[in-house]
């Protein structure tokens, strides 16, 4: 049954794409996030739908889309540099076969992030992309949220639609992304035009936010709890009555503790002391190994270079636990081929200092650009510009949450985040283009319909 409606939906999506080729772009984003070919049991799981839509989207843009308003920005150039550099490191990788496997999807994520801003040339297109991102990720979040409410969940055991660690279907990754999309959900509630603001939209948005907040509880990912704390702090920039908000948030946090599963609170308490927790101790050891590895390999070891690590971990003594009496004494053990579990060290270990520098430049420039856009447009009085500053802020907050979550999960090349980066770039180029067009206003119109002398005014900012 699931196969039938997934196939019907996909065929309908592709069908309407032939009427409006931009919809192929949305379809590819949907397939990249939800992976219906993996959810399907037999009908479409053998068909390369992702490759087909990738080609249709790009062909549709080449053949039909108006390219006059498409702009190429500096950040797309950084993405291009990163793409080229990663290609080079893949050729010299320490583990060529595994590196080639990771490169086979990384290059697509980067190419898509470079291409996507070229098609985001109207406000409605950006809004449509936001809607598809939210509903696609929402399908996973809603499923996980309901199962968590019903008492399911547990570290590594909450099944999110797909029983496989693929893309967003991995617990820690989905924890980070679920919290990162909350600012965008709240933006859509107020500024959507496909589903304009009304009580049903508000109800759905708040329900989706609640489902997203449940994902870290259901997956018991510590990353998720840290992301929730960061989100709560970032919301301080938005709320009008900060002390009231702090008091309410604090009371809500304390009041929710009795309702949380015991395994969750026990797992979260290990955040305080990583040395008594095996997985956290191992991660810190891997990070130390990566730091030393980069000194000898400044250009990195290529994708999956963690496979050569061998770490020695010293765990401190824990409190006496009658079920595990052997763990009360300090222990030392060795482990090998442990993944980075940190995007920063992932970049350092795989792509070296140049790769890490490019990656950091890409992200920091995004945060700065969104902050500048927000400050420029927050005071605008024009009705058609009211959505710009809130979108810039929502994208920035989602980005910050991702960067914090990245400290505990290796998601340096996670495609969903690159789609959010593409949205940022698209918003920036769209606003810049509008400002330049606004500067080309004819000051004098000659009688008889011919426009004589055009005087160029400098491009105007918001509220000017």
């Amino acid at each position: 049954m699931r196969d039938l409606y997934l196939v019907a939906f996909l065929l309908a999506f592709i069908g309407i794409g032939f009427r409006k080729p931009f919809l192929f772009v949305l379809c590819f984003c949907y397939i990249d996030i939800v992976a219906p070919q993996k959810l399907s049991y037999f009908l479409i799981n053998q068909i390369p739908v992702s490759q087909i839509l990738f080609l249709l989207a790009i062909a549709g843009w080449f053949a039909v889309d108006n390219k006059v308003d498409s702009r190429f920005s500096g950040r797309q150039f950084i993405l291009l540099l990163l793409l080229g550099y990663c290609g080079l490191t893949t050729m010299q990788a320490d583990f060529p076969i595994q590196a080639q496997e990771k490169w086979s999807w990384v290059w697509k994520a980067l190419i898509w992030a470079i291409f996507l801003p070229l098609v985001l040339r109207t406000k409605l297109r950006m809004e449509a992309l936001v809607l598809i991102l939210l509903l696609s990720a929402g399908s996973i979040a809603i499923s996980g949220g309901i199962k968590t409410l019903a008492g399911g969940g547990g570290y590594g055991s909450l099944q999110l639609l797909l029983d496989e660690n693929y893309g967003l279907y991995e617990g820690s990754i989905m924890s980070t992304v679920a919290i990162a999309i909350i600012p965008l959900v709240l933006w859509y509630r107020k500024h959507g035009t496909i589903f304009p603001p009304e009580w049903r939209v508000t109800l759905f948005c708040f329900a989706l936010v609640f489902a997203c907040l449940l994902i870290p509880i259901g997956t018991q990912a510590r990353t998720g709890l840290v992301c929730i704390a960061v989100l709560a702090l970032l919301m301080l920039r938005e709320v009008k009555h900060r002390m009231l908000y702090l008091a309410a948030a604090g009371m809500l946090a304390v009041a929710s503790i009795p309702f949380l599963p015991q395994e969750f609170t026990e797992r979260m308490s290990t955040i305080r002391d990583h040395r008594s927790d095996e997985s956290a101790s191992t991660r810190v050891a891997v990070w130390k190994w990566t730091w030393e590895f980069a000194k000898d390999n400044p250009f990195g070891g290529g994708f999956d270079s963690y496979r050569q690590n061998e770490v020695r971990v010293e765990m401190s003594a824990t409190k006496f636990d009658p079920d595990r009496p052997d763990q009360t004494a300090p222990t030392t053990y060795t482990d090998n081929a442990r993944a980075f579990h940190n995007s920063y060290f992932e970049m350092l270990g795989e792509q070296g200092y140049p790769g890490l520098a490019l990656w950091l430049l890409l992200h920091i420039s995004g945060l700065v650009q969104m902050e500048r856009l927000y400050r420029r447009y927050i005071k605008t009085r024009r009705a058609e510009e009211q959505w710009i500053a809130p979108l810039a802020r929502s994208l920035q907050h989602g980005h910050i949450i991702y960067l914090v979550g990245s400290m505990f999960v290796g998601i340096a090349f996670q495609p969903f985040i690159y789609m959010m980066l593409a949205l940022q770039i698209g918003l920036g180029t769209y606003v810049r283009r509008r400002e330049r067009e606004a500067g080309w206003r004819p000051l004098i119109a000659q009688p008889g319909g011919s426009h004589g002398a055009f005087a160029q005014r400098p491009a105007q900012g918001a509220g000017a």
Partner: protein
Amino acid sequence: MVDHFAIILTHGLMALGLLRLLYRDDLDHEVSPRQRWQQHQDDNADA
């Protein structure tokens, strides 16, 4: 059951949103209110 509900709800909303997009002219070509006002002024001047 839960998975079916989540998929049907979100995909249904996506389908409805895509249907609405089909009938929106501003998906491919955006005309701001100020540009519309300017075009109106230009048309009046031509007339």
